[in-house]
């Protein structure tokens, strides 16, 4: 076993030199690369550029949401940055062959909080990196590890915001502002929810029916879930309601896919840099701050 204890002074010197190179050159190279990737990622989120401010509204993108299994629900959602600016939902009810159509009120926008949070986390990460440009000299490995930990924390949170939609209870969905966004107003037996799951924009429409007060069914309110299944029950106002049909339609947002890939790549870069630093841990740990 070649050990550092047995290592000659020359070997030590070489290792020291290598570590210095790592801290002074390699770290900055990686940080540069990270910054480039994250800038690319943040461009996807159409961050307002600093200085120039609002140069007109962010560009609008239309997404047609559908599902391969059913054509009962169709939705056209317009995304403007992190906000839904328009929505058209068509719902076909086979029972009476009725076609329902809802749209957002003109004056309203619906913020997709998941996208906003992810975007903010990315810009926090960029900010952390921007404070450590080439002119900055890292002195210890611990310093790099701390920076990487902070950046990775932001990136992991950014990714998790997109990969884990909020689990809401049915009353929470009913109470959310989204249901009040439509004109004409949503009928009382419909609930709508919009969220991001990984790279997909998802729209769920719940059809409800009221439970008779004397119903023999065991009333058990459903807990929180991303997607509730038919049969889920809840209490809203004085009424007890049950989900009769669930329609979920979705559409891939290409730039979200890119962003997720960027997150994964940059997380791996961070970890690799940490691993590189750790190789020298027996050296850096005994250096004074």
């Amino acid at each position: 076993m070649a050990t550092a204890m047995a290592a000659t002074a020359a070997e030590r010197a070489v290792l020291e030199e290598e570590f210095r190179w790592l801290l002074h050159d390699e770290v900055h190279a990686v940080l540069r690369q990270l910054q480039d990737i994250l800038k690319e990622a943040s461009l996807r989120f159409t961050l307002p550029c600093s200085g120039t401010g609002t140069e007109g509204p962010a560009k609008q993108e239309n997404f047609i949401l559908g599902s391969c299994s059913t054509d009962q629900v169709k939705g056209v959602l317009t995304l403007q940055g992190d906000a839904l600016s328009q929505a058209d939902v068509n719902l076909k009810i086979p029972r009476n062959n009725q076609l329902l159509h809802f749209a957002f009120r003109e004056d309203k926008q619906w913020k997709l909080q998941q996208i906003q949070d992810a975007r903010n986390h990315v810009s926090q990460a960029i900010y952390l990196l921007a404070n450590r440009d080439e002119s900055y000299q890292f002195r210890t490995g611990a310093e790099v590890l701390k920076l990487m930990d902070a950046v990775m924390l932001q990136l992991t949170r950014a990714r998790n915001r997109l990969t884990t939609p909020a689990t809401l209870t049915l009353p929470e969905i009913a109470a959310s502002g989204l249901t009040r966004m439509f004109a004409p107003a949503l009928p009382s037996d419909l609930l709508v929810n919009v969220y991001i799951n990984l790279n997909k924009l998802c729209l769920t429409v719940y059809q409800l029916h009221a439970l008779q007060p004397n119903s023999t069914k065991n009333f058990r309110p459903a807990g929180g879930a991303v997607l509730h299944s038919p049969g889920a029950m809840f209490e809203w106002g004085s009424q007890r309601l049950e989900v009769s049909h669930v329609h979920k339609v979705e559409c891939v947002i290409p730039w979200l896919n890119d962003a997720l890939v960027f997150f994964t790549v940059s997380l791996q870069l961070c970890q690799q840099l940490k691993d590189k630093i750790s190789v020298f841990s027996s050296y850096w740990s005994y250096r004074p701050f």
Partner: protein
Amino acid sequence: MRCSLQAVALWGKKAPPHSITAIMITDDQQTIVTGSQEGQLCLWNLSPELKISAKELLFGHSASVTCLAKARDFSKQPYVVSAAENGEMCVWNVTNGQRVEKATLPYRHTAICYYHCSFRMTGEGWLLCCGEYQDVLIIDAKSLAVIHTFISSQSPDWINCLCIVHSMRIQEDSLLVVSVAGELKVWDLSSTINSIQEKQDVYEKESKFLDSLNCRAIRFCTYTERLLLVVFSKCWKVYDYCDFSLLRTEVSRSGQFFAGGEVLAAHRIIIWTEDGHSFIYQLLNRWAQMGAAYKTFSGLSKSIYPADGRVLKETIYPHLLCSTSVQENKGLSFVMGYMNERKEPFYKILFSGEVSGRITLWHIPDVPVSKFDGSPREIPITATWTLQDNFDKHHTMSIIDHVPGAGTVVVTSSEYVSSLDKLICGCEDGTILITQALNAAKAGLLEGGSLLKDSLPHKVLKGHHQSVTSLLYPHGLSSKLDQSWLLSGDQDSCVILWNIFTEEVLHKFFLEAGPVTSLLMSPENFRLRSDQVICCVCSDHSVALLHLEGKRCLLHARKHLFPVRMIKWHPVENFLIVGCADDSAYIWEIETGTLERHETGERARIILNCCDDSQLLKPEFALPVTSETHKHKSVEQRPSSSCQFGPIPCPGLQVESSWKVADVKPFSGPFNVLPVKTRWSDIGFHILLFDLENLVELLLPTPVCDVDPSNSFYGSEILRRAKSTVEKKTLTLKRNKTASGSLSAEAQAKPVSENPAQGENTAKSLGDNEGIKRQKKIKNSKKMHPKPSRKVDANITIDTAKLFLSCFLPWGVDKEFDNLCIKHLDILKLQGSVSLGLASNEDHFSLMLPGWDLCNAEMKKDYSKVNLFSKKVLDLSNKYMSTLPNQVGMPRGLENNCDSSQESNTLNTIVYLLNRLFAVNKLVNTPLELACGIDRSFKMESVHKARIPGNEISNISSFYGYLRNGKSESHIPEADISLLKLISCWRDQSVQVTEAIQAVLLAEVQQHMKNLSKRAGNGQPVSMTEDVHCEMRQILQETEWTREEIELHCTTDTLPLQTPVSPVKHDSDSNSAKFQDTEDMPDRCVLEESESPGKPRHHSWIAKVCSCKLC
């Protein structure tokens, strides 16, 4: 609840790292509070001469601290709130270091502002918080519960910073915030308090886009009530508060990032940067300059303002007056703040905390001026300090300092084996030292202990070539494994299996996978061919399974890209499930060593969550670098029965659970050494933990002494529910029976009995019968928990007790007294003050830092006193002394002529003292709510309580068969009651536990010594063993009694707080107890009568007395 845990820290030469992320100075300018990346808070003492000294380290957060703020009107309560990266929030009392409140919310705060409006608000006020969530959260400052939010109607976004504007002019408080996107928003505060309390939506009053990103601070000029300073990372701007028109933008130099700013005075501001520089500017008005060259804007504003009104935009330009800077450490990140106090003797202070742990203060002159030639003046640093400075200035020792040959070796890992009292330390140079922990501690702490230095038994295991990074003593986790085995892993990924008794290497495993970060053992139920396996996590993220019996490596799983966070075992399928930091899961087949599956995202989460029923091991502590859990979890010796700890698979990096004192709980002895490693460094230290309760239990030779007062307290709560007195009688009888049999078991089953009791609190209409049934059930469950037999060497126990006394006694109060202590208690004097620590019931720990005792200004000049916690201790001690009866309550009659009895006397005295301390500790720790929470049926309680001591007395009396005159009475001498009242009084006055313990210890020992010298004079032989036991009994009863007392207090208020002035008894003959009894009896009868005129209890009480007499 393990409130009896007392701690002493052995810090070593190097200070633990403290990378400051948040800093504040309290309003009284006496304490600096810092929060660190490592998760601890540090309290620093700030003297009136602006000298800094670290005082106390507070452990409570498991992630990096993000912000600090005051949490109350500081003059009333010295509370500070801290928030951590993972959503934890704690409120601390910064004068005594105790944690007042804790909550974990799913929000990460970056700034907190305390707001209180006394005439419109009930409660303790609000904490206005912003952070990584939309808009502003309003959190109750007392309960830390979310009250409501301030909502923005336009472009809601994360908020970067906030400030509260109190404007005298418009008589309205406003909340000003700047969002991440650079939007300034204003909410009305004082006029919306009602709407907030009614949970109505409150939208912003105004909003304006500021056109810059990364806002770092927003400040309102209260002097002019006109200017608004907004600091962004690349520029700072001044706005007119009236119409938010921009008056000035100043852009930073390249490479310079602004971090904050503050208004010093009218038209004078200070701006600081991330790299620790600050600049003081005078804001000049161009018009003013044109008119009269060197007059300030404020002087002229009146004359110019009405003239042109708003037609022409005013412009302001800054003139740099002064600057501050730090010489070394350029480029490190700083957090800074400014404190403006206009009143004398307060200062205007600019303060900064560095990531390296250094604090720097600048005293800003009241009127900063530039040099005569107009160039900026440099303000010198007033004070600077680090934790390490404290360590250098004051003598500190590590636990192995006195092990011969250890010298200056750096300990890189350690493990304490309580069953052998062995401390195993892996060192930087590859050696492993094994030493007797207790002796090592004594050698280091005590004066005469240096004699021990040479004879300190120790072993050195040599086999590693690089620093030892992890240790595992398998027998401590599973008794089936060989007692002689020890595993150690080093930097070079070599794992050695040792026989610690013969000191030979049994086997070396070469893993070739980087430093071994942790060694874990598979749970009981997972066996491979009937053997448990060792799991070894390496820093290249690989996991190796080692089979000790077979001396081979079963599996080396090397595919993980991210650090290993979690290891689970699937016993049925023979799978090893590895959870990584990126939330992915790897499933390995152990037999074949193949990767069965790799999952990410939601699936991985399900997999990691689903096998909760199987055993889970999280290598929490041993991944100090990689894991977010900053602290070490050096949780040694979990008994094998409690292997399934905390399955908390949090998403993301923030798998937390740090320093849980709860984890320390299952340790089996009265003494324990907790090795602590710090994150991002190799610096570690040790904490000696004394379990007072356990110590008392072990020292008392009789089983009755296992009675846990708190337990009977809970039990009594149940009993209280029973409404009919008749039934209560039977209950008590039952209790009586079981009490003698399963008392020890009861102590174990405390939590079991507690919960039903609380349940019953809510179920008010619970019938009597049900109550009894439940009571029975509890009894049964208690029986099902037999107490594990504890075999602890008696000598070790006594040594532990002596060390404990040495550590807690305030030395140097009186030289002669010190010598008496050394002589009669057979304890040694301390070399210097020890760093006392306090473990509270949950996951909070506070440790004094070296030099803490010099922080108190009044004690500065008094170097003769060692280890005195605070000046208050002496006062308290005197008070206690004056309440203490002269003779009663102390074991008497030390027969000096016989050596053997001297020894046993010493022991008895020690036992007595510990018992006292335990009772005091228990009393002071009993939370007030618990004591006075129940107003219902206090009568019953008093009745019941009156009984319990009696029952126990009858137990003892039957046990001892003989009791001396009068001693069998179920009464506590009045003096003792007043002592108890005094102590409960202390609690109400928020005397710290340590203070109380020291005071009582000092008083008791002094009293004892006084008696001793008196005895020596008249040499009156009195048999004492029974006495001692009686004393113990009484102390145990006392705890009962006081509880009752307290409850009576709180519920009825009929009992005045006359405690401190209660009369002092001076009867010096042994009959005094009897006297007191007779005096006391009518008293109590009256008390009972007045509260519940039921007869049966009277009878039973008398009956009890009778039974005692019979025995």
